[in-house]
């Protein structure tokens, strides 16, 4: 492992923003489960690691009347143990639970997963279907961005030099609303998704779908929100035919490539299967809710 120049662990957001905005080669460090591995692989180190885990705003999970506020550097393990979050956003928390392995979960953060900008990131699709927004602090102040607009390409995000993702905020789900996320990996764990799909559905008292969101991952340069798949669900009772129409819409929206993790044809097919199944699971969950 090459030697780095410096390590800083600021205790305030302002200090972190200043460190990052004054040095273009500094990199924020949350769990480090991507950053350190990349540094080792490329033998290229940032000038300074700016450790975010001592900044109160970046660590912790709160569930209130408005919904969820998740510090960007909060570890996956902490989130997965939060019973109320698990109850309200079962799909999102399951997606977070898929990050790495048990050991990695103690460090890996959702904010890091998002900022890494991988189209195959396990948490992004679930954040999107739950209408999550990222709270960004920068030299020019604070702003929020919908997660579906956060990633702009493989490894690229809307973050500008000096910007820092502080938190993710997720609105509280409406009544009879639930989500689900599924990914396809050839193995049972320790793998990267060849395709992923998340769905969130809202039912009325009669079981008719009144709102839905579908997002797919690893099948385009970024995770995609697929309105056509949601439209196929809205107005239906989420019967098999509706789920299949959503699957077809997801497959149609996918723009995958051939690579070592799967062929384009394969990914286009299975992202539909995952969409159908995820929407089905979300529907089951929503029906079980008061």
């Amino acid at each position, binding site marked *: 492992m090459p030697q780095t120049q410096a390590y800083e662990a600021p205790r305030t957001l302002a200090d972190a923003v200043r460190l990052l905005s004054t040095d273009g080669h500094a990199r924020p460090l949350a769990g480090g489960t991507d950053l350190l591995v990349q540094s080792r692989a490329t033998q290229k180190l940032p000038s300074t690691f700016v450790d975010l885990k001592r900044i109160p705003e970046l660590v912790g999970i709160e569930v209130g009347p408005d919904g969820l506020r998740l510090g960007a550097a909060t570890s996956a393990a902490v989130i997965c143990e939060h019973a109320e979050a698990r109850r309200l956003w079962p799909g999102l928390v399951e997606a977070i639970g898929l990050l790495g392995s048990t050991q990695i979960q103690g460090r890996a953060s959702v904010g890091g997963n998002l900022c890494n900008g991988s189209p195959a990131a396990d948490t992004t699709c679930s954040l999107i279907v739950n209408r999550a927004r990222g709270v960004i602090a920068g030299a020019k102040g604070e702003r929020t961005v919908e997660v579906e607009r956060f990633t702009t390409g493989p490894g690229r995000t809307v973050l500008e030099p000096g910007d820092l993702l502080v938190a993710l905020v997720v609105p509280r789900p409406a009544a009879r609303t639930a989500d689900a996320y599924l990914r396809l990996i050839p193995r049972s764990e320790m*793998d990267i998704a060849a395709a992923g799909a998340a769905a969130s559905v809202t039912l009325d008292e009669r079981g008719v779908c009144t709102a839905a969101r579908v997002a797919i991952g690893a099948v385009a340069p970024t995770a995609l929100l697929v309105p056509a798949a949601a439209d196929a669900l809205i107005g239906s009772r989420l019967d098999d035919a509706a789920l299949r129409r959503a699957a077809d819409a997801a497959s149609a929206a996918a723009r995958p490539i051939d690579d070592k993790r799967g062929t384009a044809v394969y990914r286009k097919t*299975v992202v539909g299967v995952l969409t159908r199944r995820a929407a089905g699971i979300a529907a089951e969950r929503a029906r079980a809710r008061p």
Partner: protein
Amino acid sequence: MSTATKTFEHVGTRPIRHDGLDKVTGRANYGADYALPGMLHGYVVRSPHAHARIVSIDTSAAEAMAGVKAVVTGSDIPKTNAKLVMGEAALDLGAMGDNALAHDKALYEGHAVAAVAATSPEIASAAAEAIRVVYEPLQPVMNVDQALAPDALILHDGMVTKGRPKPDAPTRTNVALRMELTRGDLDKGFAGADVVIERTFTTPMVHQGYIEPHACVARWGEDGQVVVWTSTQGHFVVRDCCAGILGIDAARIKVIPSEIGGGFGGKIPVYLEPVAIALARKAHRPVKLVMSREDVFRASGPTSGTKIRVKLGAKKDGSFVAASASLYYEAGAYAGSPAGAGAMCAIAAYDIPNFLVEAYDIVVNRPKVAAYRAPGAPAAAFAVESVVDEVARRLGKDPIELRLQNAVREGDQAAYGPEFGPIGLREVLEAARCHPHWKAPLVPQPGRKVGRGVACGFWFNAGLNSSATVSLSADGSANVVTGNPDIGGTRVAQALMVSEELGIPVERVRPIVADTDSIGYNDVTGGSRVCYATGMAVIEAARDAQAQLRARAAKIWDVPVEQVGWERGRAIALNGASGREPLTVSELAAKLMHTGGPIIGSATVNAPMAGPAFGAHICDLEVDEDTGVSRVVRYTVVQDVGKAVHPSYVEGQMQGGASQGIGWALNEEYVYDAEGHLQNPGFLDYRMPVASDLPMIDTVIIEVANPLHPYGVRGVGEVPIVPPLAAVANAMHDATRVRFTALPLSPPRVLAALKQRG
């Protein structure tokens, strides 16, 4: 000796291994754990091209950097035609040296072309970047079909096909060897068949996937004495290879083996050691070289990708009447694939009167293959056992029944030549047929298809050369010293053998793997030979010590030594001397200094081939037909092991071999782009199974004693990787009705085939 009735007191028990606690608590020292004062860190420059002529290498900028103490290139490794005999196979030291540092051509992506030693890893890698290598890229030859094409680029000028080339074979060739096995009249045989199945199979290049990357430290003393610390399967072979490659006297090289984090055959060749020695010689400082995981995938030896055509003919009653097979194996950059072994194993399990099996060893622009657990056999068994499965289905026969009907037995002439002695194939198949797994109903989960497959496997097992000593301490404990790195629990097995012969409790026997200066010659830990052959040396050494102990008892009792016997770890008085209380080893040891001094028993063996062994595997596989994702849900390994010295580690070998074979069947493969660049040189995308991918693998130990060994031991470690490829593919067929002829059965391939099936 009849072992059927032999009872054991220690052999067959399951004590904790002597090296276990250090390993599970992180205290054991592996190859990368060694450090010496003043040690330099090496970095190897590797070719970015799969095939290129090396026009020039300019090392001046690197040499001028502060902290850089030595730079070496191919010109520091003499070209040689020397061979090193290792058992049956001769290691081509010229090729091994050229593989360690290329002379004229880079023959695969990752081929080492230069190396640097510097005072820190950062300086070494920066200096490596400063080395200017000018390449003239050539078209890469990436697989069997490309290598055999009439207009194929030739990797090695002057290569001639050894063995039995076909009369019309081209003179400029990438075929290093062609061999064949024949018997009877093939045409007549097939003419008499009621069912003939012919298929062509492919298997991908796969890596052993040992957890510990290659690593070594070399020191070149001012007196010219060389010491190497390394992770290897055979330090004597490292010594002799380095001596031959570098043209230095082996008497000046001492090799000290570290603990080894897996090898499976892949840690038999040398890669880093000659380079580290060359750097240390130039730098006058010790040099450490460690491969990254990417280096291991790109530049150490995986096993061959293959293309295999099999044709099998059977009568309606099930008897096999004719078989033909053509095996094409990728050797990588230099000659030496296990095609020949594949050919010998292909139909070894069956008694077939007419056959022709031919094998081709083919060079391609991929890393030179190394041995991998029963090298050559798994791919051959995948092809043949898939066809056997298909014959069974065509004839409506139970697949185990069909195999039993055609199974070789003692006295049959093996397809590869000699007559079989006592072998356990029928016992293994009978046990598989009676196993509850074979009879259990298949119950699919909702939305899944489930299938069951079975397959056989064969491996020769090696014998070769071993040395051992057993020395007694005055407290009645003992050392047992051998020269084989312990990969599979061989130390505790050797300690158990000493316990058995001398009656010393196993925890009071210290098994030691000594360096090349401290014990007689030992061939590599490979070929499933250590528990068998080195075990024979240990038993003989213990019996030598036992004879000396009897003489000491005779001295104490003042009787002729003929009147002293040995029973259950004690000297007992026989006929003329009766009436005397037996003397235990502890009692005899306490008097060592009064009866003649210390006792060392020693023995060497030149063991013949270790007695062939067979296994049969049963696999239940569940398939998601919408995604092509499959999972092994139940798996049983049945194997003839001769005699299980430490049953836990025998079972561990059976489970480990099966796990590797399942990975080979389902997801592992080298993925290259068109330019010959490896796309997945890491465990994330080179998908070996993780623990949660596999069920607990059930094992059934069959013991048909091997008459060549005093306890009946057969080699164990290699057989279990032979059947899984076919067992999994046959289960996939059972589940989906699709006969897969190309591995791996990765989800995209499976889904594509299911769509085609409709």
